[in-house]
């Protein structure tokens, strides 16, 4: 029973991280119909920024860890959003009217660029990441079951979800985003600045990915330049599983995937842990390409 609960918690933790990344995927796809292959790298850059800024503060100042955590989180969000927006501006904006496969190839290129940029500027080795999340004493009784970090990850994810839902449902920008994702031409006609909406979408998606990056770094205790690739692919699987373009779908898909991986690794085989995501992806796309919560799109002929 305890093993089972542990697996559930591990699944929820994983699912939370996937959700934070998958949101960016799904929002970008919803608006410009691009699989932003380099999205995982933004998450990796978030983790690196937090490690670097946090490290500098740790070494040069005597600030308490929680303060450092928040400063480095803020830095990660700022820089990741910056990378996301810049990437869009350089690699995707000139391709708005190009065939989708051309844009996808550009995205693959961007992914290589960012990975190797971090590899060359920093290192190819795993860097140790000292967790900055304090252990809350009130959790001690259940400590063997759930760590503080896991709890923080889940709570943060829920908070981010609520924040995003409000943003998209009730703000002007949120409405503009929804309008753009439904019909770009119409949105433009009613006076929505598409470029602004796309930039904003990349910024928000990158920011949530950065939060995921900082959290996973605290959780795993080490990072390298390659962590973004697999996490990115899996988050993409989660987004497709939930129905790409749908925000609640991305969250649902992420938790389903997190659970499936956790249980698959726990009860079937941990060697194939990474394969589960791919198998799920293939099955879902073959059986119901629109995902769990996506709309069925019929091509107009």
């Amino acid at each position, binding site marked *: 029973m305890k093993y089972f609960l542990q697996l559930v918690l591990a699944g929820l933790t994983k699912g939370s991280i996937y959700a934070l990344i998958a949101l960016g995927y799904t929002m970008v796809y919803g608006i410009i119909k691009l699989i932003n292959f380099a999205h995982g790298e933004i998450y990796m850059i978030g983790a690196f920024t937090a490690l670097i800024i946090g490290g500098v503060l740790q070494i040069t100042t005597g600030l308490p860890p929680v303060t450092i955590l928040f400063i480095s989180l803020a830095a990660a969000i700022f820089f990741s959003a910056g990378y996301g927006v810049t990437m869009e501006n350089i690699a995707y904006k000139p391709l708005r009217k*190009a065939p989708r496969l051309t844009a996808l*190839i550009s995205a693959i290129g961007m992914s290589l660029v960012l990975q190797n*940029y971090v590899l060359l500027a920093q290192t190819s080795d795993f860097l140790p990441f000292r967790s900055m999340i304090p252990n809350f004493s009130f959790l001690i009784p259940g400590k063997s079951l759930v760590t503080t970090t896991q709890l923080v990850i889940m709570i943060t994810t829920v908070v981010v979800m609520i924040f995003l839902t409000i943003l998209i449902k009730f703000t002007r920008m949120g409405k503009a985003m929804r309008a753009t994702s439904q019909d770009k031409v119409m949105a433009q006609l009613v006076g929505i600045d598409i470029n602004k909406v796309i930039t904003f979408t990349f910024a928000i998606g990158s920011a949530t990915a950065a939060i995921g990056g900082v959290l996973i770094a605290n959780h795993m205790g080490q990072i390298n330049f390659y962590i973004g690739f697999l996490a990115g692919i899996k988050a993409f699987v989660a987004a497709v599983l939930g129905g790409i373009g749908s925000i609640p779908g991305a969250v649902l898909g992420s938790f389903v995937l997190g659970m499936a991986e956790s249980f698959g690794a726990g009860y079937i085989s941990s060697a194939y842990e990474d394969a589960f995501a791919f198998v799920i992806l*293939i099955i879902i796309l073959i059986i119901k390409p629109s995902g769990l919560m996506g709309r069925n799109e019929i091509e107009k002929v």
Partner: protein
Amino acid sequence: MNKVLKEIRTSALSALWMMILTFPIIVIKVNTINMTVNWRWINLMWVGTGTFILSWLWRYLLDRKENGSGLKKTDTKESRRFSLHKSLNDKKMRIPVLSTLAVLVLVLPLLVNFYQVSIMTSALIFVILGLGLNIVIGYGGLLHLGYAAFYAMGAYSYGLMYLYWGIPFWVALPLGAVSGAVFGLLIGFPVLRLRGDYLAIVTLAFGEIARLVLENLSGFTKGPEGIAQIPRPGFITKLSLQGATIYLFYICIALVLFTIFVMRRIEDSRIGRALEAMSEDDIAAQSMGIDLTKAKLTTFALGAIWAGMAGVLLAAKTTYINPGSFTLMESVMILVAVVLGGTGSIPGVILGAFLVTLIPEYFRALSDYRMLMFGVALVVMSIFRPQGIIPRVRKHYIVGEDQS
């Protein structure tokens, strides 16, 4: 003058932005174990000046691309600039050019050292891979990101067949092609309904699953440690290392020629036309009676055959294979070769494959920057020259007035 000032301002702002953006990763290096921070301010200067110049160039090129769109039509017609390509199309030049090339290729192993021959052989294997992927992407219009799995199928066919039954190279070569094709069909079936980017991601997934299976079926495939001591092809008797390498070079040359021959024949046939139609508009193609199921499966199988053969060649060349040779990065490299050279263009893909394999070999100093450069190349090519270095020149059926 005002315009120049404005350009300077924009470039300066871009440079400033990039300096801010890259600051933490480019400048700071922390060591949390020794508790030291290394500030590399000089890097910031590089980023600043680099961005200043490049952003100027970038805007100039973008501007030219957008305003030059009217010239595009003539551009495709004059894209035969590449001289070798042009001379090959010119009937009079064809024979002398081809025979010079042939002589060069034949005597090459006698002129250069054995190490060079080995590098050229790797490049030739990559040419076969590129041409094979070109069928899928260039002709069929299906973006395939798991092509390395087909490659692995070929390599492991030879490796395993040798390991368990001692099957020699010449038997393994066709069998590798067949197993590649079978695997291509197996992957082709489930993905029939998918299109465009979804198809790309699913092929990626298949590629990764194939690699994970190879890694984890340790009992059968020897897992991550791989299969060693696969024999090189022998010529009547067993050859010396040097002899076998040169022999394999000639085999690769022959197979490349065979590949080109088949590609050209396919391009110019009923099947080729059907693939062309499918990649342009699948709904219209289907309404004209083209069976998309058949066309897609043909595409996958035809593409996989060459990967299977290339895999056998790789196993024979390196005598050692492991799953690490068939990662997603390998698939991406083959894709780079195709896109860089010119999707759909046979000479383009050949050039692309040579560039991708030879640049890192001959510019060792650059080899750390290899992947970064290829990434940049993919982005730049997508934006400025999606048709590649040597764009495809489609052969058209031209009818003369006399045929009425």
